[in-house]
């Protein structure tokens, strides 16, 4: 806190509160230090960067927890209301830090084996994490866009990190083109919202999410509100890979190096959800009184229902016919975005604050469970893929069950958790999300979601059957499991069962404490 105190003495403006962005500053600063260390250190000392990055992520997590424990009452805001501190931000921040730390554990030995520049990889990962954290903490469309770009540019480079591999290059280029395309959609939406929220009394427009919510009914160009919200829906839809904006996902996930795919499926997706939730739940909230605000809310909720149904169905049905494990997990990640949208819809349509907060906590919890099981599954896929990601087809998993029992059994646990088997994290996440949707009366939506879960059983169980009940004709030896990957796998296995058996503590932490009983406007 020395830094923050030093700044606060120098700055009379209470809006510049450096302590409020301490986790972001730590991660970004460590990213810069990692670059310097990488430039100074001899090639044999490159492992330092991984340890340094882990230490930085740990420090940022400690700062977040410290912030969590040290505020009460109204959410503190700073930087002219551009940064906000609330449960949504902190829960997602911890998810991002967890995802990045596990990605470093998974990739530590991989980077060395593939002879990739480790320092570059770790600093890019840290910068991406900074962007994700800004996306969760921004209470202003400009900050959210800034965070999104910091995240995206780092991820584009990471997707093409094996630069001698054509698949990796293709993945990076596709991600770059479609990612910038979606950023443009988002930016256009932001511009339209800014124009729309001009008031009849002569105030210029606003990009502040709280101010947008207050301006909806007195907006000067209400029609533009809908166009802007639709554009932002498309932009965020691209980022979290909802159908029909999902076409980039399988190609990018397949071509990117497997640890990067693990990161992309867990981190940026959760970051997209964090700001998607922030913009739509707080920017276009449920309003009982008839008016433009109520219409805007009803419009995006109904659009989102359609999106959720298409996303779940397309993700699960197309995953059935995939023969590449990474592509299959990509479609599975699309389907999981659809399940999380069910909770999102419940949060958007919630009529009282308590339900809304529990729905928000449910979505955050869902993203946490998805990150845990997804990172675990990708850690094992990385090991089985060997050098240069060669073995990622389903045939490569033929009959490995009894030759590498520990690995195959752990992968089966993750797949069953992704399917949503009781006692695992995936089940608890789905229960949370679907129950808030039921509470809000979205029966048909939940029925579709549950049917989709049943469909998904086919492709998750198929891989397990391939591993244990197929004969293998070609020779195969079990891959060596490096200590860091083993640690990552152990953490994720514990996470899967902890979140599946004792979710209460995490959910309570993610949920906003009811400060005062207040109804929505």
């Amino acid at each position: 806190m020395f830094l923050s105190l030093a700044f606060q003495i120098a700055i009379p403006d209470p809006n510049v509160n450096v302590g409020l962005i301490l986790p972001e500053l730590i991660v970004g600063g460590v990213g810069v230090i990692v670059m310097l260390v990488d430039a100074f250190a001899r090639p044999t000392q490159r492992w330092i960067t991984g340890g340094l990055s882990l230490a930085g992520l740990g420090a940022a997590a400690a700062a977040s927890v410290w912030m969590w424990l040290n505020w009460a009452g109204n959410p503190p805001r700073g930087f002219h209301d551009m940064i906000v501190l609330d449960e949504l931000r902190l829960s997602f921040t911890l998810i991002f830090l967890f995802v990045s730390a596990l990605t470093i554990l998974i990739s530590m030995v991989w980077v060395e084996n593939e002879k990739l520049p480790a320092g570059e990889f770790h600093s890019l990962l840290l910068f991406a994490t900074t962007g994700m954290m800004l996306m969760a903490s921004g209470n202003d469309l400009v900050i959210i866009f800034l965070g999104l770009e910091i995240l995206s540019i780092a991820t584009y480079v990471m997707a093409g990190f094996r630069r001698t591999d054509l698949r990796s290059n293709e993945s990076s280029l596709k991600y770059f083109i479609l990612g910038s395309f979606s950023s443009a959609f988002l930016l256009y939406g932001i511009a339209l919202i800014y124009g729309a929220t001009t008031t009849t009394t002569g105030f210029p427009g606003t990009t502040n999410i709280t101010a947008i919510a207050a301006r909806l009914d007195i907006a000067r160009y209400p029609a533009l509100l809908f166009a802007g919200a639709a554009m932002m829906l498309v932009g965020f839809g691209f980022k979290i890979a909802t159908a029909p904006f999902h076409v980039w996902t399988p190609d990018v996930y397949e071509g990117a190096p497997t640890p990067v795919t693990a990161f992309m499926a867990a981190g940026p997706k959760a970051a997209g959800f964090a700001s998607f939730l922030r913009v739509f739940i707080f920017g276009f909230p449920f309003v009982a009184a008839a008016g433009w605000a109520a219409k805007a809310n009803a419009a995006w909720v109904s659009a989102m229902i359609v999106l959720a149904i298409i996303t779940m169905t397309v993700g699960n049905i197309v995953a059935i016919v995939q023969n590449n494990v990474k592509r299959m997990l990509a479609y599975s990640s699309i389907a999981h975005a659809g399940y999380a949208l069910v909770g999102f819809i419940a949060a958007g349509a919630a009529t009282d604050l308590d339900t809304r907060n529990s729905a928000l906590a449910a979505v955050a919890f869902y993203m946490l469970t998805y990150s845990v099981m997804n990172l675990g599954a990708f850690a094992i896929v990385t090991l089985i893929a060997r050098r240069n990601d060669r073995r990622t087809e389903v045939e490569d998993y033929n009959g490995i069950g009894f030759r590498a029992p520990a690995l195959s059994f752990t992968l089966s646990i993750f797949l069953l958790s992704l399917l949503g088997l009781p006692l695992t994290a995936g089940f608890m996440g789905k229960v949370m999300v679907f129950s808030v949707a039921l509470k809000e009366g979205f029966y048909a939506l939940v029925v579709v979601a549950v049917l989709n879960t049943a469909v998904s059983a086919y492709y998750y169980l198929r891989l397990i059957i391939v591993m244990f009940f197929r004969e293998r004709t070609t020779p195969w030896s079990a891959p060596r499991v490096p200590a860091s990957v083993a640690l990552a796998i152990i953490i994720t296995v514990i996470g899967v069962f902890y979140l599946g058996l004792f979710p209460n503590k995490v959910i309570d932490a993610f949920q906003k404490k009811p400060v005062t009983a207040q109804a929505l406007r």
Partner: protein
Amino acid sequence: MLGAILLQATETTATTTAAQSVGAPVTAYWPVMIFFLVAIIFPVLPIVLGRFLRPMKYLKAKMRPYECGIDPETEAHDRFTVRYYIVAMLFLIFDVETIFLLPWAIIFMGDDFSFTKFALIEMFVFIAILIVGYYYAWRKGALEWA
């Protein structure tokens, strides 16, 4: 009709007495439209006029590409070494830095001394991060041509 093209909202908002500080949608967009027209006419007009006005004398030497007076040696569609792009990128970084420095310099001299101090620190942090990037590129051999 024009209102629909220029993204004008419903009639209810158009009838409200517009505060002059904001400007009604149509009038607010006219300068943009005029600028757009000028932007199209400006390059097209000289090309069209030149076609009619210039004397037509085609010589072989005249049809060759102009490379600052030196005789061209190879085809224009050639592969360039990637170093050019790295140098261009490094140049761009410091070019963009100037763009950020200029508005900062303009608001720097205010009456508020505490703000000035803060702005100075912030700008040094910004430049320090840029220098780290520059140093990194240097150490990684981006500036070595041999």
